[in-house]
């Protein structure tokens, strides 16, 4: 794992979060810094976290998974529709659907050498289309109301089952990346795919695996969300891409690939959730929160872009002999 990054990008969101909480606390006093807000933050994390992780992982290998929205939506619908009798069955089918969707897209990207944006754009539209088909263009209520309580009620402290699962996904990802040989291989694919291939890294397999995993993670999050709401709708989630991308980039992921850690992404997610929950607690209207999140994303995009240009310059400056390696925007 890139060690020196630990001193900057990964912990940056946590430092910012402390500052943010201090500011919000000043502004809102007890309304803000209370257990209800904390619970709200953690609940939001349960959805946004896994999605940001999935998106972040694809960004780390220098791709971009637009279809996360579609996977979350479709998985929610499948879980509700198929899980009428047994929530476990619903969850399993949803997870399977997500995994397959990711796997198919990954195959197309690797085998046909297509741009991941293009493939996942088509994938997203198709997945949402299927969601519409399955639900008949209406919101579907989930008969099993109890499950909502199971999923959302606190297991201990303010931590619900949903949150624990979401956090568990992060822990797993962090462990795999940090402790196995897959970690450096993953970063190498994002940092310099040609160099990775030459060194002997199975780049195609890694790209495929990341997209499949992205589908799986989003599907689980989507299924749990639908259980929590006891309803699934094919049209509810249009705007999750913005905070997910923002969280990932704040957490140290770069559009150019090769950087970022699950811990950092978690930090970015928590920061945004604190921002949103805090603003809601103070009484700021939701659309203004959208504006705030959008501005944050714009800012980090600009900074990331400038940094990327500089990295590219650095690469070229250190005398790469025969053919300079171009990153351009392969996203």
């Amino acid at each position, binding site marked *: 794992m890139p060690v020196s990054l630990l001193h900057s990008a990964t912990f940056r969101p946590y430092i910012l979060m402390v500052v943010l909480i201090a500011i919000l606390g000043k502004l809102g006093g007890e309304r803000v810094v209370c257990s209800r807000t904390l619970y709200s933050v953690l609940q939001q994390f349960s959805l946004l976290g896994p999605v940001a992780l999935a998106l972040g992982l694809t960004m780390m290998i220098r791709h971009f998974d637009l279809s996360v929205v579609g996977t979350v939506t479709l998985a929610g619908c499948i879980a509700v529709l198929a899980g009428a009798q047994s929530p476990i069955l619903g969850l399993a089918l949803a997870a399977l659907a997500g995994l397959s969707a990711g796997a198919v897209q990954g195959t197309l990207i690797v085998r046909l050498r297509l741009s991941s944006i293009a493939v996942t754009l088509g994938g997203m539209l198709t997945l949402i*289309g299927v969601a519409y088909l399955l639900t008949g263009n209406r919101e579907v209520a989930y008969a099993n109301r109890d499950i909502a309580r199971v999923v959302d009620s606190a297991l201990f402290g303010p931590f619900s089952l949903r949150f624990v699962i979401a956090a568990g996904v992060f822990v797993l990802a962090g462990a795999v990346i940090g402790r196995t040989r897959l970690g450096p291989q993953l970063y190498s694919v994002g940092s310099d795919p040609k160099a990775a291939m030459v060194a002997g890294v199975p780049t195609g397999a890694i790209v495929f695996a990341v997209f499949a995993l992205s589908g799986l993670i989003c599907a689980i999050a989507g299924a749990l969300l639908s259980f929590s709401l006891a309803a699934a709708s094919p049209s509810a989630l249009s705007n999750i891409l913005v905070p997910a991308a923002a969280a990932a980039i704040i957490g140290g992921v770069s559009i150019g690939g090769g950087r970022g850690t699950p811990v950092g992404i978690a930090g970015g997610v928590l920061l945004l959730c604190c921002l949103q929950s805090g603003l809601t607690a103070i009484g700021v209207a939701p659309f203004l929160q959208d504006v705030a999140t959008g501005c944050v994303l714009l800012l980090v995009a600009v900074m990331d872009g400038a940094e990327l240009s500089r990295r590219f310059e650095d690469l070229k400056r250190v005398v790469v002999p025969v053919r300079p390696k171009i990153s351009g925007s392969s996203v």
Partner: protein
Amino acid sequence: MNSDTDLPRAAQPDFAALKARITLGNAVTLLAVLVLAALALATPGFLSMPAIRSLVTTVSFTGCVAIGMTFITLSGNLMSFSLGASLSAATLIFVATLGAGLWPAILAAVLFCAALNALQGWIVGYFRANPIIVSMASFAIITGVATAVTGGRGLYILTNVAAGLKGNLGPIPGPFAAFAICMLIAQLILSRTALGRRIVLTGTNPRAMLAMGAEPWKAVVWAYALAGLFTGVAAVLMAARYGSGDLQHGIGMEYSAIAAVLVGGTAIEGGRGSFLRTFLGALFIAVLQSVLVLRGFSTEWQRFGMGAVVLLVILLQRK
């Protein structure tokens, strides 16, 4: 003296060029068009006036946005997720300024939309920020600000000022004529002006542009500005047609637009394509939608159909 160092392939351009045209992609396209045409003609009610009118009107709105989107795609920046939000905002501006007269309102809406997108183009081009992310962020900001300003409600046109825009140009519905004219203007810009050539070359190879001493970011700003311009036209047409400015107008527009662009055959990675293609692509999708509706397929099937078509087109586009 010339050194004849080329392969025989390049030395027989005519025959080779002809053969190159008959690729798998083209064959599939031809087939698809024929199938769709057959389906359409066989569908009861397709050739009726109301159906045609409806088709022609909706295609004009999506089509103009698609023309705007094409500029962005050609410049190498994939697509913009905020064109729909720009459109909605522009409809609001249009209705809000109608008091000053029809043409000032049109000007205001179109220029506003162009400026809004030019700003995004500057961020993408100058700072080399990722276009997808910038457009996503802009979508959130524009929607949020517009909601804040309007309180979520729409603005309604109370006078008859804009009635002219709903009328016909001879036998052709006004909006469709506008769409066709937009396509022609855009194509003219692309193939006949230095700016258009610069946009295409930037989309093909921004590094080579930089090495030639051109400033690629300027071409990108112009591409986005033009995208905003044509989206503004769509906004004016929509506002006139529905009699209101509303945030709902633009929802999902960018997906239909990019579908039209891709189906038409413009390459997603930029540098290749034309507005005639987008025009035809928009028509293709509109006909497909109309056929589905007339045959009784629900909106869900339409959505699914659209998604599947986009995916298929992208798969077929690989070189």
